[in-house]
Every structure is written in structure tokens, then in C-alpha cells.
């Protein structure tokens, strides 16, 4: 599913913030990605999401070398990945419903085909009453849930989440973790970047720890 070989990343002429990353995440796996602030968790997620190119090394995603992808293939791969951004990235002029439905809409699906699924998911993440409002009216936690709903609505093969429980209370945090676990049971590989120890303690999953630019997997 995911294979990194000697991957390094630096921004411009700065120091290398990710060094010699070599690891494999199997299909249907579940990993927590952790490490101190500034260790490069978000950068690694961006590499996995193909929104950054490594300065060296090889990244293989879904059996394809990402360096050789055409634009069309890139769009195809993005449709197989769900990404929960730390800063949510919701479109302010679209309602919660429209934001969550966006991945299906860009695939050219008709609203009548996905309406029920989106409404069900919104209710499940507790946004049933907020589906008609615009993001600027939503609280931080609500935005986060909308962002998660958007990432999972297309039943992605790989889910990447950057601090997905950072803005919600512990109860809701547990509930969202359960959503990720359910998705994982259904076959989605999950990578959750977090430094919430409590969250990690709730689910026995391997931890990928980033420290000093290097990655080590703690089973």
C-alpha cells in the first residue's frame, strides 16, 4: 500500500527535516503517527497525500512510483485517499452538506445518488442539525467533524488524518476514533497523526514515531 525507500525532505535550502525514511504500511493497516511538535508529522502526511514531493528517495503508493504519475493519475490516486487537514480546508461558501459531498460531486455523481449517504454520515458525526449552515458559523469541533466526514464519504482506501481530535472533547474524540476503526475494519488503511497519548492508548495499533527526522515503528 505505502512503501518509502530512503525518502528525504527539505524545504528550499533548509536542513533536511525528514531523513532516510524507509518503511512499508500494509493494506488494511492502522498506524498512529506521533512525535514531538515540529518533528515533521504534517510533512510526512503531505508526502503521503502527494501534495509535497520528496527531495530524494522513492515513494510507492498503491503500487505506483509517485514520481512518474501524470496529472490524471494523481487525481485518480487522490480519490482513493481521504485526508483530514489540521486546518480543515472547508470551502466557506458551501454548506456543511455541500462540503462533505464535494469529493462525490467532483467525481460527477448526481446529488440524488449520494444525498442519503451524506445526510446519514453528517448525522452520525453529530452535524445533522448543522448541514445547512456555512463553515464560518461552525465551531472548531464542528469544522473538524465536517472535515472528517468529507475525508471518509468516498470510502477511501487510505485515510490520512492530521490531529483529527485536536479540537473536540474526549467523548467525541473517542467517537471519531471509533469511526476510523470501523473504516479500518471495512478495509481502509488508516494513518492518524496525533500527539494525544490518551487517544493512542484507546486502540492497540502500531505507532510510527518521528524523531530527529527519523521514523521508528513501535509495534
Amino acid at each position: 500500500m505505502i512503501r518509502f525507500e530512503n525518502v528525504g525532505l527539505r524545504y528550499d535550502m533548509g536542513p533536511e527535516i525528514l531523513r532516510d525514511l524507509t518503511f512499508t504500511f500494509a493494506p488494511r493497516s492502522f498506524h498512529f503517527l506521533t512525535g514531538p511538535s515540529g518533528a515533521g508529522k504534517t510533512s510526512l502526511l503531505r508526502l503521503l497525500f502527494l501534495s509535497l514531493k520528496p527531495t530524494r528517495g522513492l515513494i510507492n503508493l498503491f503500487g505506483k512510483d509517485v514520481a512518474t504519475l501524470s496529472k490524471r493519475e494523481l487525481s485518480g490516486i487522490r480519490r482513493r485517499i481521504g485526508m483530514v487537514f489540521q486546518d480543515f480546508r472547508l470551502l466557506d461558501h458551501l454548506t456543511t452538506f455541500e462540503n462533505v459531498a464535494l469529493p462525490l460531486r467532483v467525481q460527477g455523481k448526481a446529488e440524488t445518488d449520494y444525498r442519503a449517504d451524506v445526510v446519514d454520515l453528517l448525522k452520525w458525526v453529530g452535524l445533522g442539525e448543522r448541514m445547512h449552515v456555512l463553515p464560518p458559523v461552525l465551531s472548531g469541533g464542528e469544522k473538524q467533524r465536517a472535515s472528517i466526514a468529507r475525508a471518509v464519504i468516498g470510502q477511501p482506501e487510505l485515510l490520512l488524518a492530521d490531529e483529527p481530535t485536536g479540537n473536540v472533547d474526549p467523548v467525541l474524540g473517542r467517537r471519531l476514533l471509533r469511526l476510523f476503526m470501523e473504516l479500518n475494519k471495512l478495509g481502509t488503511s488508516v494513518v492518524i497523526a496525533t500527539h494525544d497519548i490518551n487517544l493512542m492508548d484507546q486502540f492497540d495499533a502500531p505507532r510510527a514515531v518521528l524523531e530527529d527526522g527519523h521514523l521508528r515503528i513501535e509495534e
Partner: protein
Amino acid sequence: MSAAEHGTDGDLTAVKGEPELRPSAQIVPQRSVAGSALTLVVAIMSFLACLTLGGVTLIRDAAHTWQGEIGREVTIQIRPIDGVDTEAELNKARDIAMAAPGIAGARIVSTAETERLLEPWLGSGLELSGLPVPRLVIVEVADAGATDFGALRQALTEVAGASLDDHGLWTERLAATAAVLVMIGIGVLVLVLVAMVLSVVFATRGAMAGNRSVVEVLHFVGAEDGFIAGQFQRHFMVLGLKGGLAGGLAAMAVFAIGNLLSRGPLGTGGTTGAEMLFGGFAVGPTGYLGALGVVFVVAVLTAATSRITVQRHLAMLS
């Protein structure tokens, strides 16, 4: 995984009887595209393009009418030659003209008429018989297309002192002038459309820059460039259609007012310079159809320009 299962958070309970969903909003926000200013620019450009096109059709129609009217009458001039019976030559020339195809009739200008024609220069009461005054045969052409003036001229070589004036020089000059004016008009039309395309390019670039986060999110959720370009194109197509229609309708109104005025008291009174030239300011159906064509072209150009601009911009992003 039901909401009730957890039941600790008010937010998590299912909602009954939620309001109907609004029709999906456009992915590119309406407000973010330079709306009214660009619509106005497109409207003005369309208006100017339609006026230019109307002017071109007006000149072309007028030149066509002129050429038709001039070509409807030709003259044969017979110079008196010593020892030749001019009257006999006049009759011969008339008969030759009458026999030619496409000729409606031929008439010899009588001596009395010739005297009257010369009166302003030579004064009245003159005896012209002693003077070598050329005589004329006026030939009316029924169908200029059917008449072979070259053959007629050749046939008239049998007549002593005859020469045919088919106003060819005038019509050629007129046709050349009209062609130049039409070319200038088309040049102006092209320039106006190019200026419009450029303003759409700038506006699209502006809209792309203003919607960078939207484009980014669309890419993140797996949208292809064609889909994103389509979203912008739809905006600009509507904008182009609105602007084009406004400009086109305004131009048509100007044509209609021009037509009315040329028929009204202003037109029936003294003849103005424009009327003398164009025979009344009346843009024909070609002008109106052309204006509709301009509206269509403007809408298509606007949409295509924005699509190409967006696709280029996206290609650059990658």
C-alpha cells in the same frame, strides 16, 4: 454505531424533519469572479462590435445600391466626323444597343435636348448645327449581369466616332472605396473582440488567484483540471451571455432608432450628408442578424477564453 448508543452529546442525536437542502451552490463562488465590472466591459465591447458590424452592412448595402443605380444606365457618345451622317450613325448605334442582350431600351438624345444640355455653358439661341457637338444615345440596362459591355463596345466599332461609357471607372472606384471601408470595419471588429478576450483573460487570472484555496481543495478531493476549468467556464459563459446580450440589444435599439429617424420628419426634410451617401440610415436584417451573431460569438469567446486560461494556469501549478 447508532447515535443513541453513545448518547452523551446533544450534537450526536439524529435530526428529524430537517429542512430541505438548497440546490447545490456553485463550486466557484459567484461573488469572487469580477462580476459586474467585467459584464459591463463585455457589454460595451459587444455594443461597439455590433455598431461596427451594423456600419459595415450599411456601407456594403449602400455601395451595392449605388453600383446598381449607376450600372442601370450607360451612354453611347457619337463624335461628329466630317463627311459622315451623324444621324445615320446615331440610329445605327441605337439599333446595335437594342440588339444587345439585357438592354431594356435605347433613346437618341435629340438636337433640342442637346441644346438644352449645353445652354448653361453656351447660352440660349445658339445655332449648334455648325458646331461639332457630340451626340448621345442613352441606353437603359435591364439586367447588368446579362449585358456584355465588352461585346457591345466591340459591336459599336462599326459606328463611326462612337464610344461607350458604362461608368466602369466610377463603379470600380466606388467598389474599391466600399471594400476599404468594409475592411476597416472588420479590422475594428477584430480589435474590439481581441480587447474583450484580453479583459476576460485578466479577469479569469484574477478569479483564479482569488480562488486559490478553492482550486487547492478541489485538487485535494480528486478533481481533474477539466472539472475545475468547467466550473470557471460556466461562470464566464453566463457573464459573457449577459454582457453580450446587453450590448447587442443596445446596438439593435440604436439601429431601430436610426431607422425610425431616417423615416421620420428628419429624413423627409432636407437631405443630410449621410442620407445622400447611404440613402437613409437603415440597417437591414443582415445588421440585426449580425448583432445576434456577435452576442453568440462573445458568449462562446468568453467561455473558451476562461477555460483555456484556467487550464494553462492549472498546468503551471503542477
